[in-house]
């Protein structure tokens, strides 16, 4: 499958935005301007952009927790300001400032977050089921890390998706790490995609540093799901440039990941790789790229302003208690 110029442009633009969003979140966490924790996405922004840029508003999305879903959500067209407000404890937050880091945009079919790794698999079955019954070609983009496939929930969801031919993309963002553990130690084969063999589910592996390569892998899977032909496993091999979450050391097992590993990784920085390509292919000029960067800066400044200018959410306990159940 080859991408159109428009598609490449859209991907590149979102890649630039994703990169800046991630930097903003990193900076704010370091500044003490975020609640809870942040799992930085540097080096790993291409998969989410490619998986989500061409989704429709009524497709279901379960964003990966890395980058706290911002990459995925902004690529799907969700206004991030409500999530940043949430993450700063503000009353304009998408969860009324109650949730710390959970996201929720039901009108965009991004329903939820839970702190349990692998939480996405069970509800994805229900979303897929609803989409299939509706029969309008909606798909479920189910994004999570290599580590999450350790959970038995992953098996159950893939089993049922394949039994029922549900329109689910099992999108595995394999950065080779879960916290300090390496995928080499925690999964017995080189590819998490080997799990798809269990169900005779089609699978494809792509280069997660190359946003275009990921898009070329994921778009046919989306089309296949839309046509009602069932689930696909898509594995994007990616990298984690930073520590797992800000504040934890950057270890593999129990030893520092070395300078050399970092240098090797950074040779495959996704924005640099994509920039080279869009320039070479004439998708954008350098000037246009500068423009995209400026636009993204402005967008993010506005998002931060919204969050910072909102009030801290401190409703009285009685008000909260009245909100535990739907009326």
């Amino acid at each position, binding site marked *: 499958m080859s991408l159109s110029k428009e598609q490449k442009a859209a991907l590149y633009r979102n890649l630039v935005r994703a990169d800046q969003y991630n930097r903003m979140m990193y900076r704010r966490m370091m500044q003490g301007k975020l609640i809870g924790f942040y799992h930085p996405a540097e080096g790993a922004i291409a998969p989410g952009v490619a998986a989500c840029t061409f989704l429709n508003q009524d497709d279901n999305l379960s964003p990966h927790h890395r980058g706290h879903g911002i990459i995925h959500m902004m690529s799907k067209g969700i206004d991030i300001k409500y999530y940043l407000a949430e993450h700063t404890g503000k009353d304009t937050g998408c969860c009324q400032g*109650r949730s710390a880091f959970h996201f929720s945009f039901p009108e965009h079919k991004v329903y939820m977050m839970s702190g349990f790794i692998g939480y996405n698999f069970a509800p994805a*079955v229900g979303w897929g089921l*609803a989409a299939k019954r509706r029969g309008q070609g909606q798909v479920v983009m189910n994004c999570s890390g290599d580590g999450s496939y350790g959970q038995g929930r992953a098996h159950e969801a893939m*089993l049922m998706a394949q039994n029922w031919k549900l329109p689910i993309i099992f999108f595995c963002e394999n950065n080779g790490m879960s916290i300090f553990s390496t995928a080499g130690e925690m999964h017995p084969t080189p590819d998490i995609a080997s799990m798809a063999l269990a169900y005779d589910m089609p699978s494809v592996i792509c280069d997660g540093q190359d946003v275009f390569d990921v898009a070329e892998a994921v778009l046919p899977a989306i089309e296949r799901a839309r046509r009602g032909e069932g689930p696909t496993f898509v594995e994007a091999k990616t990298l984690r440039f930073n520590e797992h979450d800000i504040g934890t050391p950057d270890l593999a097992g129990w030893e520092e990941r070395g300078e050399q590993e970092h240098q090797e990784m950074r040779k495959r920085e996704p924005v640099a790789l994509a920039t080279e390509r869009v320039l070479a292919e004439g998708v954008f000029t350098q000037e246009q790229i500068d423009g995209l960067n400026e636009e993204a800066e402005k967008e993010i400044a506005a998002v931060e302003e919204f969050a910072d200018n909102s009030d801290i959410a401190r409703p009285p306990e009685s008000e909260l208690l009245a*909100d535990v*159940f739907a009326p």
Partner: protein
Amino acid sequence: MRTITLIDAIKEAYQEELRRDDSVFLVGQDLRGAIFPHTKGLVEEFGTERILDTPIAESGMYGAAFGAAQEGMRPVVDFMFGGFSYVTFSECSVTTGQYYFLHGSQQSLPIVITAGVGTGQRLANDHAMSIHGTFAHHPGIKVAMPSTPYDAKGMFKAAIRDDNPVVIPWHMGIMMLKGEIPDEDYVVPLGVADVKREGDDVTVLANSMQLQHALKVAEKLEGEISVEVIDPRSFVPFDIDTVLQSLEKTNRLVVVDEDWESGGFAATVSARIMEQGFDLLDAPVTRVTLPNMPVPGGYMEEYVAPNPEKIEAAIRAVCA
């Protein structure tokens, strides 16, 4: 009025709600073939999409309900035996209970969770344990349990129509209990207790199979001790006002609960009455519960679990 069994009352609730609302569906294991009679024959009317059987994969199965509820459907998820809900407990307790509130109270989650529970089959702990107390410990989930066919039909209908997650197990010990139900559509609202028998000397709060035990004891004691029997029907929300009103009259309370003493619903009731009704009490609130041991199967079950003898003894003790 017709006379039907409790399990058939649940089935009628299913049938009527499935007919009334296209978004209602059942999901579980072997519902089509019907492990328990309340799903028997439903697949013939409603088809395999609405009477949906899954692999033995409780997380995926529950997920089918959870995700579908987020998509606007109204699933009833049947765990067969209550203990099996523990296999996917992070989903059906924490994630379910927090979904609405923690995500800003924007989107409700209309899931009904049901299963058979309770002692009487001699099947031992994992097949006999109660689940209402555990779920009542986790905020954001309504919890109720019917004691009569009338309540069963009305409460299951209320649960299916409720926009919140509702855990509503039914007790295997009274599945064949018969009772009258009207022909018209009705619901029994969740959160409203029911005075099942009036009395003056002592109030007994009991539910489900234990409610039936309590009624028997009340009858036996008639003339000697006048026992008011209240069925909480719902544990969350719990209608404490009805109990406090009764205590104005009786000043004595026995709470019967087929769950463990430690951390069970009976403890919560006792603590709340302590706080809200201390001055009404002529004697300490007394509980009849499962002792703090895994429910044994075999011949021990019947004397370890709450039973009429234990209830009678507790009544006599608080009235002494």
